[in-house]
C-alpha cells in the first residue's frame, strides 16, 4: 500500500514485529551453528538492526560489528532497510579462486 502514490509503502511507517530469514555461510554458519536462521526484529529494520540482533544470539559475538550483508543478492549498507520478503545473507570475507 502506498501513501498517496509517493512510492513509500505504508508499512515502513509502522512499528510491528517481523521475522527475517538470514542465510549464513562458511565461518559465520559455524559461529552461529546454522546455515539459515529466523531473527525476530521490529520493523522498520535496517541492516544494522539485524546485525545487532544476530550478535545477541549464542555464537553471535564471533561476528564482526559490521559484516558484509547482501539483500536480494546485492551488497547492502548498514542503513539499508530490510523488507519482510527480502532474501538476506551475511557474507564472510570472500576467498574464491
Amino acid at each position, binding site marked *: 500500500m502506498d501513501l498517496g502514490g509517493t512510492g513509500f509503502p505504508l508499512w515502513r511507517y509502522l512499528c510491528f514485529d517481523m521475522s527475517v530469514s538470514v*542465510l549464513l*555461510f*562458511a*565461518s559465520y554458519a*559455524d559461529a552461529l551453528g546454522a546455515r539459515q536462521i529466523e531473527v525476530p526484529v521490529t520493523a522498520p529494520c535496517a*541492516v544494522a538492526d539485524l546485525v545487532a540482533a544476530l550478535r545477541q544470539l549464542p555464537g553471535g559475538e564471533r561476528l564482526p560489528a*559490521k*559484516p*558484509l*550483508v*547482501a539483500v536480494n*543478492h546485492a*551488497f*547492502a*549498507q*548498514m*542503513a539499508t532497510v530490510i523488507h519482510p520478503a527480502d532474501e538476506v*545473507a551475511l*557474507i*564472510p*570475507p*570472500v*576467498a*574464491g*579462486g
Partner: protein
Amino acid sequence: MVTAPIDVSHLIGTAQAAGVGALSVFLGTVRDLNDGRPVQGMDYEAYEAMAASELAAVAREVCDRTPGLRVAIEHRIGTLGIGEVSVAIVAAHAHRGPAMDGAREIIESLKQRVPIWKREHYVDGERAWVDPTRAGQVPLEVPR
C-alpha cells in the same frame, strides 16, 4: 558455478570465435601448502545464486571496458584435491594484450567480490576457513 571437474577444453571452445587471435587461460588450482602449513584438500562453498550474478557482473564490466573481449568463466564448488582446478577463466580477443589483461582483471575482481569461500584441510587433520583479510588484503568496503 559447477560441482563437476571443469572441462577447460570445452570452456575454451565457448570463448573461441572467428575473430579471435589470442586466448588467455587462467586456472586456479589447489596447492599443497599455505602459510607454511601442509594442505591435503579444500572445500569450496558459495552463495550460489549471488555468486552467479556477481560473476556475470564482473564479466560484463570487464567486457564493457574492453570492446571485442569474449570471456568464459567456471568456478567449482565442493571438495577438491591437490592440483585440481577450482576456477577457469578464458578471455579471448583479436589481440593478446586485451586477452591477457582481461583474464587478470576477472580473477582479481572475482577474488574481491564474488561470494565464494574455501576451507583448507590440513595434513594434521584440522580444517579452517581461509580469511584473506587477515593476510593484509584489502577487504570489500560496503558497510556504512
